């Protein structure tokens, strides 16, 4: 039987606010010493009370607006009750039935099609502490680092609108880019500031009803989401084809073994006993404020892509590659705008920057699995390099070498060229001795050329380049070698 896959995603995003969700502790806990970003509120000490972080609400409204959501006037926080040592109060302050944003959609693109994925809701809650477990053979205890407790966490819940792992991946990468464009989160998957859980089920093609679903957790990269979902599709298909029923449960992705395993069945599901958080009055979200936020939403990927084509004459293909990630687009625009150019000069310069970025620089970054924001070559350095090539001081080939050195050492291109003596030799009198040397040393090639084998000239050009350690200007070498051979030919004739 043909089955249709149904996927919905829940994404948790840590917000990049200065302070935590309900207290004034700093939210940048990642690099802080253990249990140093704590206070009575985020420690859940007796008597402490939460106070809502206005910036976190603003970031969530921003995200809601960028996801084409409605922002209802009335919103409130609720308590989600469950006991666990990473939860300081025995309940998490979250939002249950009146989230900050509802009924949105996100446009995604796959190779096959462009489609809109529904966004059910965007709500705000608090992150929990981090546990570190030590197994029985090392004493059998657990430690709690409370730094993460109370960090603002935004949850974005999609409709079950995705039909393949590929669509799920496209949704995630698009959402990820959107969040970075908005500047509301670092959205770093490695450090956990962007986390994804997936609900997935299969149903006979054409069926309207949903099949039993599983919830997949513990996927730490876009790749693992893609792999885990494909694994789960296959697993569920085999269960159904074997005449079985998919058990509604939570399953964890085990990266090393590339499988999902059962973690918790539906029967073990908590009764969270949600009820309105009495310590926080409901919020009345002023529509004027919402419109003010809408008015200052930053430029998003699609707008920027269009503008790059318009302002810099880039092809749609290049513009899209450059605007997929905000960091890439920012780098590009910083580089292009370092010089006050306009018209054709600007477009030509932009094309150069784009070529270097999408070509060699991306190659180097990909090798090291680095993001453009971590590039050792700054936009200033890239433009300097482009200038050196453009002014004919070094060749394009030499440029690639210099870029690689700048990438590896973090040095300035001009400095590298000077220190290494990479300057291109464009002075005829400086190249001519090398031409004579090459002809002298290769009488055989000269004879071949004179015998009518024109390709021998190319070999001699290469020899000249070798003697000049690549610094001679290739055009000039060509010209001088041809002239010298022609003179020899004339002499023979």
């Amino acid at each position, binding site marked *: 039987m043909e089955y249709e896959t149904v996927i919905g995603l829940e994404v948790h995003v840590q917000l990049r606010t200065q302070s935590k969700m309900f207290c004034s502790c700093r939210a940048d806990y990642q690099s802080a010493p253990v249990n140093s970003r704590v206070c*009575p509120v985020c*420690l*859940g*000490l*007796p*008597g*402490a*009370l*939460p*106070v*809502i972080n206005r910036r976190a609400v603003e970031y969530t409204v921003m995200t809601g607006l960028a996801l084409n959501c409605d922002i209802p006037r009335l919103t409130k926080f609720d*308590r989600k*009750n469950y*006991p666990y*040592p990473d939860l*300081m*109060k*025995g*309940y998490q302050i979250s939002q249950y039935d009146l989230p900050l944003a509802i009924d949105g959609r996100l446009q995604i693109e796959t190779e096959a099609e462009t489609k809109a994925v529904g966004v059910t809701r965007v709500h705000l809650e608090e992150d929990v502490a981090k546990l570190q477990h030590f197994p*029985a053979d090392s004493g*059998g205890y*657990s430690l*709690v680092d409370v730094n993460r407790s109370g960090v603002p966490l935004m949850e974005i819940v999609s409709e079950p609108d995705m039909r393949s792992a590929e669509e799920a991946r496209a949704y995630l990468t698009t959402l990820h880019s959107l969040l970075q464009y908005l500047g509301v989160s670092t959205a770093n998957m490695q450090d956990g500031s962007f986390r994804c859980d997936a609900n997935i089920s299969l149903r006979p093609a054409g069926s309207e009803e949903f099949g039993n679903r599983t919830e997949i957790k513990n996927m730490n990269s876009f790749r693992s989401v893609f792999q885990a979902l494909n694994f789960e599709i296959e697993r569920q298909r085999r269960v159904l084809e074997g005449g079985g029923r998919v058990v509604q449960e939570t399953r964890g992705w085990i990266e090393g073994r590339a499988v999902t395993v059962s973690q918790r069945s539906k029967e073990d599901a908590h*009764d969270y*006993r*949600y*009820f309105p958080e*009495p*310590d*926080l*009055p409901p919020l009345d979200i002023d529509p004027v404020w919402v419109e003010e936020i809408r008015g200052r939403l930053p430029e998003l990927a699609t707008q920027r892509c269009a503008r790059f084509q318009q302002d810099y004459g880039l092809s749609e293909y290049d513009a899209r590659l450059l605007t997929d990630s905000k960091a890439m687009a920012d780098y590009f625009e910083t580089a292009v705008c370092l010089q006050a150019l306009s018209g054709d000069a600007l477009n030509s310069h932009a094309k150069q920057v784009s070529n270097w970025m999408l070509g060699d620089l991306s190659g180097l970054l990909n090798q090291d699995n680095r993001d453009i924001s971590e590039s050792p070559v700054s936009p200033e350095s890239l433009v300097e390099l482009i200038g050196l090539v453009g002014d004919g001081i070094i060749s394009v080939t030499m440029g690639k070498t210099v870029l690689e050195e700048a990438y590896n050492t973090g040095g300035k291109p001009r400095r590298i060229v000077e220190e290494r003596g990479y300057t291109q030799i464009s002075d005829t009198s400086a190249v001519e001795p090398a031409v004579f040397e090459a002809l002298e040393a290769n009488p055989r090639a000269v004879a071949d050329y004179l015998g009518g084998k024109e390709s021998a000239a190319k070999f001699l050009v290469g020899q000249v380049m070798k003697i000049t350690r690549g610094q001679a200007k290739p055009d000039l070498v060509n010209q001088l070698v041809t002239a010298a051979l022609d003179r020899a030919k004339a002499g023979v004739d």
Partner: protein
Amino acid sequence: MAPGAWTVTGIRAAVAGGDLSAREVCAHYLDRIAATDGRLHAFTTVLREAALARADEVDARRASWRDRPLLGVPIAVKDVICTRGVPTTAGSRILAGYRPPYDATVVSRLLDAGAVIVGKTNCDEFAMGSSTEHSAYGPTRNPWALDRIPGGSSGGAAAAVAAGQAPASIGTDTGGSIRQPAALCGVVGLKPTYGRVSRYGLLAFASSLDQIGPLTWTVADAAAVLQVLAGPDPRDATASTEPPPDLSRLFPGNVRGTRIGVPRVALADGVDPEVLDAFGAALAMLSDRGAEVCDVDLPHMQYAVPVYYLVAPAEASSNLARYDGVRYGHRAKLDGAAAGVSEMYARTRSEGFGAEVKRRIMLGTYALSAGYYDAYYVHAQRVRSLIRNDFDRAFAAVDAVAMPTTPTPAFRIGERIDDPLAMYLGDVFTVSANLTGLPAISLPAGLTQARLPIGFQLVGRPFDEATLLRIGDALERDAPWSDERPPAFA
């Protein structure tokens, strides 16, 4: 200083004027506590050294602190309010020895006002109870009759003031826990409007009902202490942003034209005749001064007790979840390495909480459970709105609603301990003010023939504590009992 001058306002004036040193005042009360608390057990912690050191500090700074509103005034604080470095147990074994690293907002304000904190007062565990018998540290006794309860949950706070162990104490009121013990101990107890006083640092029982307020010997003292406690607090999102009015200028003793409503229907059943007589006498006195007394209808007040016993335990079940033995307080000793975190939780809470707290946690957990939430919690919240509507309607016609504070005077220790329902029904006149958030005050209204205090309660409009204080002041001026003291502690 004359005995009648040992009030908050009297002490402040004497210290500010240099007639008494803060140390003399503090020593007087500490000596009294030492002499009497063996019989009363109003305190869980007495801060003898710290209080004297603080009094010396007040004396040293008297010149620059002269204007501080509680200069040198000793104050006792209920043991559910955080005091930095000082044990704060909530009357519970689960917080035995717990010392908070911070002061509650009200404590900071008292200290800023120049007060001297003399100790922490006993209470029902996590403020759950009406008798102070549910304290893990033993019951407090009523200064008027040592075999009787002082009321609760702020029983220690009320007994301390009644017995002259402190001129004022700070209590908390979730369903009557300031007013009921104030009534049963013959002192003034004020529950401010919800949001008037910051709850930051108050160990939460039921967050939407809890309010902190003063217990004092006189109405003017209640006003003076409330003035210090009240006001916006950025640490409490439920605290009102409105600054309180100046309460010191409200006592001309004039109630002419003030309209006082009485819900006659509610008083028809189950109220002790002596309590009813005293209530009537107090109304007559106010009437003589020109107040207009009329009937009001509060049809939904009859549901207040059941609504309260759903809402309060529901919130409590969540608020008390944090006492799990992981970070502070009692942790069960587990034998065997195999025991996991669930067992640690279960054993810790089973050992750490008393019977009444467990009863309410179970009640509240049940009320919030899937399948019951709508029928219990949501329904209760709906009736809560109806009760508030009743009062709003009443306040269109009257300036305050009067009721007895309690249906009976203080009962004997042990009398109701095994009958939670009887205990809960004693809250019939007090819980409405918490469910509606309205301010309410309990004023001494004389003694029974057996010389047990009776309380007269007034409920006011939102943030209109001033009217309650003004009526209370008028009553106090005329009351023949206002100089009465518990005979054993006179």
